[in-house]
């Protein structure tokens, strides 16, 4: 267990990063979204990528943990509380990323005051709000030692479909758009859900390993191997969907769609596409192939890290492949909404045009990105300190689960073992 001082140090660093992010956001509000690299062609960027990613992480963790109760998978119950805490934190971060992406954050309340229910964004606002409430309540009931199993069951039974829905709806924000051929696919929601499952589970495994440093008991080998096995299966389902999607575009080689596919296979997004395949699929699958390695903490940790980074790469190529090529790209193209006035030349030479998109995040975007994630890590650390380690109930059921049999509500109330 890590000492109090180094814990405090860790939190101080996170708080500083979060404060830097807040400062960058204030700068962005003062100067407009022009301080980001976004423009009229690539009109969504790093923030929305992170939003997609975080909704996935959140949904994945909760699906795994609530299926523990719903399907009565006993060993999984040990990880329910850290998983729900993780989901709660991730969904808060996802909402923050939507917020920092708004051009008029002061009008944020319009989403509540004059919602239009034909917009998938409003569906998402509704399900994310519901999801947040359910996660917090679920966490509350998991943290109370006197909660009945039926209550836990009820909450997990509600949380499971809502978690699936929250990521499906996020997929539909993109997948229902006829303007974006790479998004417009019925497979997008299933693809998002399975990416949520593997990245969420991978992050959960990483967090559980990190929690050991806070004095949370180690994952016992059986559970580690089971979760790692599940991760390997999910990774395969994920790549199956990606393969199916790419093949469907490749086979007819329809001219328009091929331009987008080439962006992924050989173009500017190839590092992210192949990066995902290598880090998020090949590496973890190779690492987790054998049972003995699935019991190895370091190996599972590496595989999990690969999956998390790989799925982030997938979010990158998914978002930007849709944006880089305008459907009508005749010259001189689209007005970017941004321009730089050369110091020595006249206004006449200012170029505001482009026939294809380009995007590389600015320092403001990176700072806000890092700041929000640091805020999340801080939130989780605080939550872990006050909610996870302080609970005898959870640790007890963890110890019980290693016996892997009849851990019931009575035994779950036995005092702290570790």
């Amino acid at each position, binding site marked *: 267990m890590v000492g109090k001082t180094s814990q405090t140090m860790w939190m101080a660093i996170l708080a500083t990063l979060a404060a830097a992010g807040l400062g960058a956001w204030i700068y962005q509000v003062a100067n407009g979204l022009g301080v980001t690299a976004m423009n009229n062609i690539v009109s969504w960027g790093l923030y929305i990528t992170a939003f997609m990613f975080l909704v996935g992480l959140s949904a994945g963790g909760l699906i795994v943990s609530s299926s523990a109760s719903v399907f009565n998978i006993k060993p999984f119950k040990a990880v329910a509380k850290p998983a729900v805490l993780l989901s709660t934190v991730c969904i808060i971060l996802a909402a923050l990323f939507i917020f920092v992406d708004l051009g*008029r954050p002061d009008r944020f309340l319009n989403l509540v005051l*004059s919602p239009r229910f034909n917009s998938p964004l409003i569906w998402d606002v509704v399900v994310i709000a519901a999801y947040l409430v359910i996660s917090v309540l679920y966490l509350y009931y998991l943290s109370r030692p006197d909660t009945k199993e039926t209550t836990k069951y009820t909450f997990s039974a509600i949380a499971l479909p809502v978690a699936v829905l929250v990521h499906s709806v996020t997929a539909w924000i993109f997948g229902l758009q*006829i*303007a974006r051929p790479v998004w417009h696919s019925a497979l997008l929601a299933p693809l998002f859900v399975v990416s949520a499952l593997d990245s969420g589970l991978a992050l959960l495994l990483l967090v559980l390993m990190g929690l050991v440093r806070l004095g949370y008991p180690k994952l016992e080998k059986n559970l580690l191997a089971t979760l790692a096995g599940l991760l390997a299966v999910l990774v395969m389902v994920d790549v199956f969907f990606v393969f199916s999607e790419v093949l469907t575009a490749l086979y007819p080689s329809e001219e328009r769609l091929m331009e987008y596919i080439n962006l992924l296979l050989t173009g500017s997004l190839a590092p992210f596409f192949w990066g995902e395949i290598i880090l998020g699929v090949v590496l973890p699958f190779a690492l987790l192939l054998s049972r003995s390695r699935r019991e190895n903490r370091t190996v599972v940790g590496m595989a999990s890290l690969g999956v998390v980074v790989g799925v982030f790469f997938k979010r990158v190529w998914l978002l930007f492949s849709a944006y880089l090529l305008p459907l*009508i790209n005749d010259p*001189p193209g689209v007005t970017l909404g941004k321009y730089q006035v050369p110091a020595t030349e006249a206004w006449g030479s200012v170029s*505001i045009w482009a026939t294809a998109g380009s995007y590389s995040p600015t320092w403001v975007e990176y700072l806000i990105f890092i700041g929000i994630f640091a805020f999340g890590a801080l939130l989780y650390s605080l939550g872990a300190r006050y909610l996870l380690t302080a609970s005898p109930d959870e640790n007890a059921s963890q110890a019980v689960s290693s016996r892997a049999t009849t851990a019931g509500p009575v035994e779950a109330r036995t005092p702290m073992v570790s």
Partner: protein
Amino acid sequence: MAERKLGMTVDLKRCIGCQTCAVACRMQNNVPMGMLWNRVLTDGGEHLDRARGTYPYLTKSWLPLACQHCENAPCVKVCPVGATYKREEDGLVLIDYDKCIGCRYCMAACPYNVRVFNWKEPVRQPGHDYGDAKVPKRRKGIVEKCSFCVERVHQGAEPMCVLCCPAKARKFGDLNDPDSEVSTLIRRRRTKQLLEDKGTRPQVYYLL
């Protein structure tokens, strides 16, 4: 069908690529630096005003492009706060600049890339408002686009791009009225709508 459905025809045989409509639009609507509501693209060439094909088989044509005021408008569907809306009485797709939260979902939804965002406080060169006083002011953080010059249309006038086109390539009128000039042209000429396969049903018709 008592209501009007306002639409435009653009005669590509008449268009000479002079960019007058682009500038007229900018002047009327006070469009700031860095963006246009209405652009004139060169159809098929590699660069602006470049011919298409190989000598001696060269052709040159343009594609004036602004909001298509789609009947089945994807931008209207996705707007989470109803800032972008389809006006019942005349079928215009308009933006309530006081409602827009700047989420830019409409920009993701529009297949024509005709929506522009105020990435910073608008800058005008020369440094004053040059547009029609009736056109609402826009600030940073919101989306804007062609409104078919709703302020002029409201007074019974034509959009500025129609009025200013020296080649008389643009016509404006009620698509629901079979006797209107636009309806007659659409009936008599061969037409296309942009990205017809997307099913957006634009209210802008290009005469071929």
